[in-house]
């Protein structure tokens, strides 16, 4: 069984700070990490490999040359092969062009049985590339997977998380799933894995090697553009009070009643 995991390198957001003078994001010194949701995707692929025995886990990413580090982290965890889609021609891609490019990348890997993506990346927060890739490849798709109940060479049965519960869905393979945090607890890289990652060969894929349609990649292939970006106004820093309990309670109570939100 060939399992492909799509990952993205993102800035570790816990340290994201706003420059109060310019109102922009300060991203220097912020270490690049594997998108946390993709860690669940990698882990699930490794677990499926352990379950079915005969499987190869391939990780693929699209990004600048330094995104190679993210692929190495995946190798350290146990992935077998790693592919980096990187080319100036891909710069400025929106989710449509990214979906197209990643789909081309996956097509270049030969037979694929299962593709796993994290539900979204924590920088863009769009959750659009997973379903986009599925559509571009013409594959069946299930989003928000919180459990893989059963898997065989020809089908998979999963639990899809909805707002008010879950649905058990079965799907023929090949197919694509996006996974949520609840699916597993990712392992840590072993020392042996880290050694392996150091020596790993990362296969590079370019616009030319993928024979990508120039009209469908990069800024040219992207229907959307960023018109402007800005830092949201922080609300509050409002009133802050302390005092004895009855006083606090009456303040909260009158505030809530004034809001007129209780039905």
């Amino acid at each position, binding site marked *: 069984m060939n399992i492909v995991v799509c990952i993205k390198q993102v800035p570790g957001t816990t340290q994201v700070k706003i420059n109060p003078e310019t109102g922009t994001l300060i991203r220097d010194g912020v270490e690049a990490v594997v998108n946390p949701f993709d860690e669940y995707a990698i882990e699930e692929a490794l677990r499926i490999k352990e379950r079915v025995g005969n499987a190869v886990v391939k990780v693929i990413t699209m990004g600048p040359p330094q995104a190679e580090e993210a692929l190495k982290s995946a190798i350290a965890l146990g992935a077998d092969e790693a592919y980096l889609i990187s080319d100036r021609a891909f710069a400025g891609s929106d989710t449509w062009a990214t979906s197209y490019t990643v789909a081309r990348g996956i097509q270049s890997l030969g037979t694929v049985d299962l593709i796993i993506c994290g539900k979204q990346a924590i920088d863009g927060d769009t959750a659009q590339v997973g379903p986009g890739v599925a559509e571009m490849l013409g594959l069946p798709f299930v989003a928000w997977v919180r459990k893989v109940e059963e898997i065989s060479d020809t089908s998979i049965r999963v639990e899809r998380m909805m707002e008010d519960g879950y649905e058990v869905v079965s799907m023929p393979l090949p197919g694509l799933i996006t996974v949520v945090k609840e699916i597993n607890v990712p392992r840590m890289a072993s020392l042996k894995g880290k050694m392996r990652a150091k020596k790993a060969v990362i296969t590079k894929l370019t616009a030319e090697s993928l024979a990508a349609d120039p009209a469908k990649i990069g800024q040219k292939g992207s229907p959307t553009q960023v018109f402007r970006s800005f830092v*949201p106004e922080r609300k509050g820093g409002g009133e802050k009070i302390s005092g004895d309990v009855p006083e606090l309670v009456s303040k909260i109570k009158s505030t809530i009643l004034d809001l007129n939100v209780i039905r």
Partner: protein
Amino acid sequence: MGIHVELEKCIGCSLCVRACGVNAIEIVNKKAVIDLEKCTLCAACVEACKKYQAITITKESSGGTKNIADYKNVAIFVEQHNGIVAGVSYEMLGEGRKLADQLKEKLVAVLLGHDMQKQADELVKFGADRVVYYNSEKLANFQDDSYAQIVSEFVDTEKPAIILAGASAIGRSFIPKVAARVWGGLTADCTKLEIDVEKHLLLGTRPAFGGNLMATIICPHHRPQIATVRHKVMKAATRDEHRTGEVVVHNVETEKLTIRTTIVDIVKEVESTVNITEADIIVSGGRGMGKPENMSIVKDLAEVLGAAVGASRAVVDAGWIPYSHQVGQTGKTVCPKLYVACGISGSVQHMAGMQSSDYIIAINKDPNADIFQIANLGIVGDVMEVVPALTKAFKESLGK
């Protein structure tokens, strides 16, 4: 296409260096130099250089959609569960009506379901000029394949300029497939929509980086312009008995629909009766609640207020309450009218999930807790004393 530094304007302040997420910029001889191998054209540096305007990105776009002028009207996708129209869809009707009026175009509602003629007629009363209802047994439940197929067909035949859908589990699952298929522009999880009337453009504003950055997205050359819209942000349409409009019914032959996935079972499992993404009021508990049993204090207040129960990641990870209650970056994003944070210190990730709430009350004994930075009302006090007393006070006055 490319990025360019105007050397006369650049003063070498290095704001762009710090704004760059991929370390593609360095200052050489007091001027910014951009490594084109690393640069992803994300425009973070352009934003950082607002004051000096020394960095420009020239955009190049493809031919885009042919006959763009043929695309007219604002369409909304009507989400339904078991034949009941979802709350978020009334918000789409309200917002879609506004946008359509600005454009002086029609509001078209597209409904997929089975045996929903009555509900289809009702959509007119809630503001739709035209309802396109696809009726089939196989459309009763959401399935990515069938929904993407039908809505893509709708795009091909009706040619809407704009499509809005709720940014729900369903909307965010299949709408990207529609966008992929029709090569439309899709903006995820918008919290604000505007129209540039002159250019006939939709401006969709959305949070990124967990709410730390807002981006306004446009789609100038492709149609339709599609947006998924966050629940509880837009005002819901109100019913008007006298409104009129047309309802078009397509009875879809079942063999026409290709559905590869099979729904084996549907399980409802929210612990309390209120779904946190739908709730007007949320009472949330964090690690400050001390121990698992104390979550009942949070639940008691929620009950008396008719609120849903939320939680921080810390208490979910500790197993005090199921994941479906988690608010934050790895949980759910909520924007209720009132959010009461009990014993939540306010991690960046938690705040990302709730900072767009209309009104935030935070109760925490640490006066320096980060949550106070975004709270409209900050209560420095012990949750174990304040919250039960508050519950009691409301019980008495509400007569519960």
